[in-house]
């Protein structure tokens, strides 16, 4: 993530730049459109504006999907950005590649949301991850309420073991 210049409320930003509150709002809004500002809060909460040295983009990859579904959340080891259609199946494959204990627990929650077993098996086979997928699936079956793998793929996994 880009280096932070600082966190401001609109009043503080106006004071530091010796401009009116309205001018500060306009300036912050302009910077937000260019990606230099992220805003948190709003409504009853005071808005806090985080200013960055260069434009930031919200990651939309593996960690976004896992942290949406998993009970235990993962701290991103890298920023992951996607162009195209990234599905739960793709996220499972990425989880298998990362392969550490915490990721395994988090990824097990994704098995409940699989819609395309064919795609998942095809990708696992292409990346030589069939054996690991089977192992993760067995773990997910024990620890979460997950969808059942179609029998033909179960056989394929066992055959490749």
């Amino acid at each position, binding site marked *: 993530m880009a280096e932070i210049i600082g966190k401001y409320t609109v009043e503080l930003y106006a004071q530091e730049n010796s401009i009116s509150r309205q001018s500060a709002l306009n300036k912050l809004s302009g910077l937000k459109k260019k990606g230099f500002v992220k805003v948190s809060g709003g409504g009853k909460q005071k808005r806090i504006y985080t200013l960055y040295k260069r434009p930031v983009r919200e990651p939309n990859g593996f960690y976004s999907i896992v942290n949406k579904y998993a009970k235990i959340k993962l701290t991103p080891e*890298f920023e992951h950005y996607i162009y195209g259609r990234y599905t739960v199946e793709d996220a499972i494959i990425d989880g298998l590649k990362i392969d550490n204990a915490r990721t395994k627990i988090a990824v097990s929650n994704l098995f409940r949301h699989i819609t395309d077993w064919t795609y998942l098996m095809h990708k696992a086979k292409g990346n030589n991850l069939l054996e690991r997928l089977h192992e993760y699936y067995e773990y997910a079956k024990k620890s979460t309420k997950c969808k059942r793998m179609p029998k033909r793929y179960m056989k394929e996994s066992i055959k490749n073991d």
Partner: protein
Amino acid sequence: MINTSEQEELLKLIANFMKTDIEAVAIGGTAMMFSNYKNATKDIDIVFKDVEDRDVFIDAIKQLGYIEKSLSDIYDEKRQQNPAKPLMFSRSDERFDLFVSSVFGFKINFSQDAVLQKYDFLGKSRLTLNVPVKEVLILLKAITGRETDFEDIVTILKAENNVSWDSITKQAIGYKESLPWILIDLEECMQKLGKLFDIDDTYFKRLYDAHGD
């Protein structure tokens, strides 16, 4: 020149023409654009794990009309003789510099730990481009020695206060046996940068000691 959104669309298009999934490392202007340090570049520099992956990529760009070009207009004699030189392909203004496993002998780390950002272009196949940490980008810019590389380093240093010269110099020293010129190129670049930014003398001293001056 190619801008950020054109680059993203182009890579997505290429992913549609690739026969298999590929994971590679983006360096140079491409990596800088991904990290939002700049918004246009002349060339797209990519390092592949092996020749097979590069061939898959080359097949895809050839289908899109890219033609192989000579290195002579871009790189100096020393780099043209280097066995780890890239293959260059271009089509109108855009150019690809395609390396395999190393950049003029500087080995690229493909492990997950060395990745700062990961960009996935999903078409019929998947093109994954990893972006290394800024220190590696700076070091690579310092050793590729093209016209705009110095300006790019200045751009990174203007945007970042926390660049680790400790890490850059240590990595360069690690290559002094296999790439004896790396220390000279880096020192030359640091001397120029020293006029614009504060670089502690200890890092210069470390390079001189390693070089045996």
